[in-house]
């Protein structure tokens, strides 16, 4: 497997706008490529723009199951959590990838599932983009991580190094951010479980980081409206 000790449930949480959705979708695709039955759960009740449900059809064509409010409810500004989420939590053969809304307010929705998430059954990974305003240093990262643990009543088990400047990302940006993430990891005694980069940069990043940290190449799903023809 491309990450160490994969668990059945992988939950991505982060400070708002750190790239969770792109990451969750790409991570789920990777599991699917390994032949695992995967459901992507859109738990984002915070931000109605740029969330998993917007690319649901595309993901379903690829064979992923997407759990999110259906039909006209998908665009509602309502914190609705579909009952199928419990199915993912309870089905012991299914792999669940959770895209949780940003910040402590987003993580509150996750806390509702605490009774279904005994220690050791899940990974809760905190995604960090060190180019975002509130997670530019390890103090900021630790503050945000603690507030999310408090709101979700769950414990973070690893950090994901996801530093980027959107389309302007270069290798130096990613490596600079990775150093910040490593410092936070040391202070928190947590592992850096995964690093990411756009597909074009991923090979070079893997070389620079060495074999200890797996690099997940990202194909970006969320595009601005002026990018298409």
């Amino acid at each position: 497997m491309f990450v160490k000790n994969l668990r059945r449930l992988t939950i991505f949480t982060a400070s708002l706008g750190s790239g969770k959705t792109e990451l969750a979708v790409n991570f789920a695709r990777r599991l699917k490529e390994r032949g695992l039955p995967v459901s992507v759960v859109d738990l984002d009740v915070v931000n109605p723009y740029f969330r998993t449900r917007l690319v649901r059809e595309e993901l379903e064509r690829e064979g992923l199951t997407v759990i999110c409010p259906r039909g006209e409810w998908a665009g509602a500004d309502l914190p609705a959590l579909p009952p199928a989420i419990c199915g993912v939590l309870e089905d012991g053969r299914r792999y669940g990838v959770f895209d949780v809304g940003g910040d402590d307010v987003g993580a509150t929705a996750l806390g509702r599932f605490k009774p279904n998430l005994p220690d050791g059954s899940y990974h809760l990974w905190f995604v960090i983009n060190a180019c975002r305003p509130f997670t530019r240093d390890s103090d900021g990262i630790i503050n945000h991580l603690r507030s999310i643990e408090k709101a979700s009543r769950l414990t973070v088990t690893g950090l994901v190094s996801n530093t980027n400047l959107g389309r302007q990302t270069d290798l130096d940006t990613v490596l600079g951010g990775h150093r910040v993430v490593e410092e936070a990891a040391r202070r928190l005694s947590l592992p850096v479980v995964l690093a990411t980069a756009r597909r074009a940069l991923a090979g070079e990043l893997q070389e620079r980081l060495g074999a200890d940290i797996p690099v997940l190449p990202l194909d970006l799903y969320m595009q601005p409206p002026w990018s298409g023809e």
Partner: protein
Amino acid sequence: MAKILMKGNEAIGEGAVRAGCRYFFGYPITPQSELPHYLAKRMPQVGGVYLQAESEVATINMVYGAAGAGARVMTSSSGPGISLMQEGISYVVGAELPCVIVNMMRGGPGLGNIAPAQSDYFQATRGGGHGDYRMIVLAPASVQEIIDLMQDAFDLADRYRNPVMLAGDGVLGQMMEPVELGEEKEVRIPPRPWAATGRTGGEKHLINSLYIVPEDLEKHNIRLAAKFAAMEKEEQRWEDYLAADAELVLVAFGTAARVCKAVVDRCRREGKAVGLIRPLTLWPFPVKAFQPLLATAAHFLTVEMSMGQMVEDVRLATRECRPVYFYGRCGGMLPVAGDVYAAVQKILAGGEAK
């Protein structure tokens, strides 16, 4: 200085803080909630005040109070919340108070939806509140431009003692782009000798929009009108993107302008003379941008995320000397580059009726 990745809504907040704004009164509404969210965290870091009021009616009146006391102050909302503020905005103009009001537009009318739109153009540029008034309306099209414009927004409000509106849409608020913040500078807020700052023994200052004697109110209106005329003369802003030699000139602001720029680039690659005028001020509308184009352009195409509002100003600016066509999507739908390109093709081929 390293770049950071920001959402448009966050950039408004950071830009305001850097412009010396220390008071924000707001009420959450999608798609601008990241702005109060950001300032709730940021204002305490700089000794400012963030306050979530009980409604938008309360926020605009808090803005009135803070501005009247001489503070640099801002509020923000989206369509329905801005509608609720209209009475207060009219009072702010009447009492000649500087402040910044942000509208990240969403689909209307009514409750509409939370998706992006530009259909509050009439409300912003014609005055949604009562009485004879105008305000400068700034329309950025990128996250960096938001950062760059916030200082101007507050300075213009001070210069004219009038509210300035920053008009964006849901996409601009939500999208993330790298920005260069630059050094944080000490901001010197212009003196406000008119502010009501308590009983300090000096002259009496009254912040009020009540003129009970008609002769006085008429004089007040004439004085305000002179300010609005000065704004019209001095503050028109726009971006000219390859419009000078264009046969067809697109006219669009904000997110729609980003789409149009992509269309212009495609047309130019194909050797078609297409350009773009992007108003940066929706009011005063950049009429000056159109004067030289009347000699060079054969047609204009206005692209909006509405059923067609700015198109009326384009017709006025071109004095109907040239055909002005319209393409729009609304209700939270976005114009896509391919469809705008098709509309351009049709006009260039002599197809579309006005």
